[in-house]
């Protein structure tokens, strides 16, 4: 069994934030654009979207996609601003 101390430590981190009910990746995708728009506009994130943030804290793939989405939206907004 090749379960290193680093992996155990990572698992402990996940266990600490594990909830009985969590969004899955498809559910996260349904709400992630709304979260990205709100974060970009600096608006306080409503409690209803906290479950999306929680999923992003656990799911490395959704988090990676979210970070790329944020970068793309920032660039798009920047381009739109410079056009105007």
């Amino acid at each position, binding site marked *: *069994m*090749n*379960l290193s*101390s680093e*992996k*155990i*430590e*990572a*698992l*402990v981190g*996940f*266990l*600490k934030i*594990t909830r*009985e009910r*969590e969004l*899955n*990746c*498809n559910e996260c*995708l*349904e709400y*992630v*654009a*709304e979260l*990205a*728009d709100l974060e970009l506009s600096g608006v306080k994130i409503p409690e209803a979207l906290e479950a999306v943030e929680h999923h992003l804290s656990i*799911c*490395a*793939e959704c988090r*990676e*996609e979210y970070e*790329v*989405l944020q970068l*793309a*939206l920032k660039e*798009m907004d920047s381009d739109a601003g410079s056009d105007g």
Partner: protein
Amino acid sequence: MDHDEAFLEDMTQVSLLRILDRLDTFNGRSRFSSWAIAIATRITFNELRRREWKNASLDALKEDGLIIDKATEPAENIAGTELSQSIRELIFKELTLRQRDALIAELDGMPQGEIAHLLGGTRNNVYKLCHDARKALRRALERKGITSFNQIDLLTEIRQEETQ
């Protein structure tokens, strides 16, 4: 057209088709462009991960020791604290083989889509397997008396001190 341009064109076409197919699910709570880019990002990264891990197989992973084998004794290679040992033992006792395979592969950085490809199922199925595994481990730790995760913090600190 070079390889990258062809890939981007393919992803653009697949994304457009998916967006059109899902138009009725757009709820208007975000900008349309944000919603569409989120879908395109999901599709493109799934494909990039698939290509990166295309040669992975369950057999190869087992040979590399990534997947826990049924016959492996949980006491092997244990050099950590009580908590580390408890978690390793609980992984064997409390989780199904599929849960163990999915959880360990995920901890090793394998994308869920690829785990799904190897185990059969979807990315959502793998997330559920790992989520069920985490819940089972949490409950088992609580049954062993670790009811406050502050104790996990403490034991993690002890382990870190031991390895220094």
